[in-house]
């Protein structure tokens, strides 16, 4: 199956329509995580799924728009984390294109990479806005412990972020992977793979 390049900026209507749905999935993931009182955010499943289906550009757009909308409707602070969401969309999109969603183990590796990328991008934002904290109880306890033992702020902050991000992103990618594998083939080809099969 021949695809257009990963970085194609020609967004099909189907790919554009996917973006609001991806953002809706992000919301609902977060909602269920809170309903079930899971110790994870799970608020980027939609972004990951959009990246797997339609590539890094659509994934990055979903991430950015997700945080803009979240900022407009729930909490304005989320605007600044749009950069993290864009990074997540790009990473998943590139890795999925390179074949890292062929089996569960590769998906878990992808989750680790995404968690690392998210932590690297979020840390400067956390330091700039919150003095390095994340607002997560476990992460912040670690942060306070490291700071009390004279570790530098950037390291304490990075570890604060990563202990939260790695489990969260691995879980996110695994859920997105499970859903992706369960989708009908016709639907997958609608968004990216199927230029030859079905074009809208």
């Amino acid at each position, binding site marked *: 199956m021949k695809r257009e390049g990963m970085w194609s900026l020609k967004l099909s209507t189907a790919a554009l329509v996917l973006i609001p749905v991806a953002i809706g999935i992000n*919301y609902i993931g977060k909602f269920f995580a809170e309903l079930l009182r899971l110790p994870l955010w799970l608020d980027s499943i939609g972004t990951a799924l959009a990246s797997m289906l339609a590539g890094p550009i659509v994934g990055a757009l979903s991430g950015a728009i997700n945080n803009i909308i979240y900022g407009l409707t729930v909490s304005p602070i989320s605007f600044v984390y749009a950069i993290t969401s864009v990074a997540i969309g790009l990473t998943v999109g590139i890795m999925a294109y390179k074949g890292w969603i062929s089996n569960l183990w590769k998906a878990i590796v992808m989750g680790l990479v995404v968690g690392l990328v998210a932590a690297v991008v979020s840390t400067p934002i956390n330091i700039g806005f919150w003095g390095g904290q994340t607002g997560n109880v476990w992460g912040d306890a670690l942060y306070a412990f490291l*700071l009390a033992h004279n570790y530098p702020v950037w390291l304490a902050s990075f570890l604060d972020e990563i202990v939260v991000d790695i489990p969260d992103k691995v879980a996110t990618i695994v859920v997105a992977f499970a859903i992706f594998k369960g989708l009908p083939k016709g639907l997958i080809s609608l968004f990216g793979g199927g230029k030859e099969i079905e074009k809208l």
Partner: protein
Amino acid sequence: METLSLYVDRDSPVHRVDPISKLLYILAATAIPIILPSLLTAAVVLAISVALLLLGRTFRRVIPLISVIVFVLLTILIIQGLFRAGNVTPLFQLGSLIFYREGLLYAVRISLRVINIMLAFAILILTTKPSDLFETLVRKGLSPRIGYVLSSVLQIIPQMQNTVGTITDAQRSRGMETEGSLAVRLRAFIPLIGPVVMSSLTQTRERSIALEVRGFSAKGKKSFLNEEIQEPYHRFIRWGLLLSIILALVWRVAA
């Protein structure tokens, strides 16, 4: 149609100001305290934002937005006050814990910055209808296709939330457990989110066909539903805000 938004419908001078000016205000309220990093600048910006929110008769709606971050700000105050590198001057003591002046000052500075940005955004969010904001952005050159995506998110989320209710009830009536140990709750996640995701993704096919049929990808100039409202003072506000940022820069360089 039900949409998601924090917009408060009031008739106030702040509501009548155009969205671009409010975006510029966010820029100014964020940039000026960074360019001139004194507590006084931050306090002045804070006072202006509060005044604008009071003028827009939306101040009470800000309190729930701020209270979400107050807890985090309190932990920052405690952690930085106790442990910040460069803490030398003890300020006061609680039991065996010593709070230092430098760390507390740093925490106050951070808190003021975060609250300032929150309030500036709150002015935009509480006094501007999201659809008006998106329409203005499209007028200013944002792609209408992205404009559509932005407004459709606000309609899709309430729709999906309705589906969520139905599916949660359906799965519970089949005996799925949503309470109990972490493993039980983790296992419930996929059966809950799966059906919502599948049905919403399937709907995208119909939605994209419906859009195509209505000329969504058609080339040519798009028209707008509403007339553009232009008041002479809008331009005045915009230039005033840009000028204040430039003045702050000049002040910083000169001083």
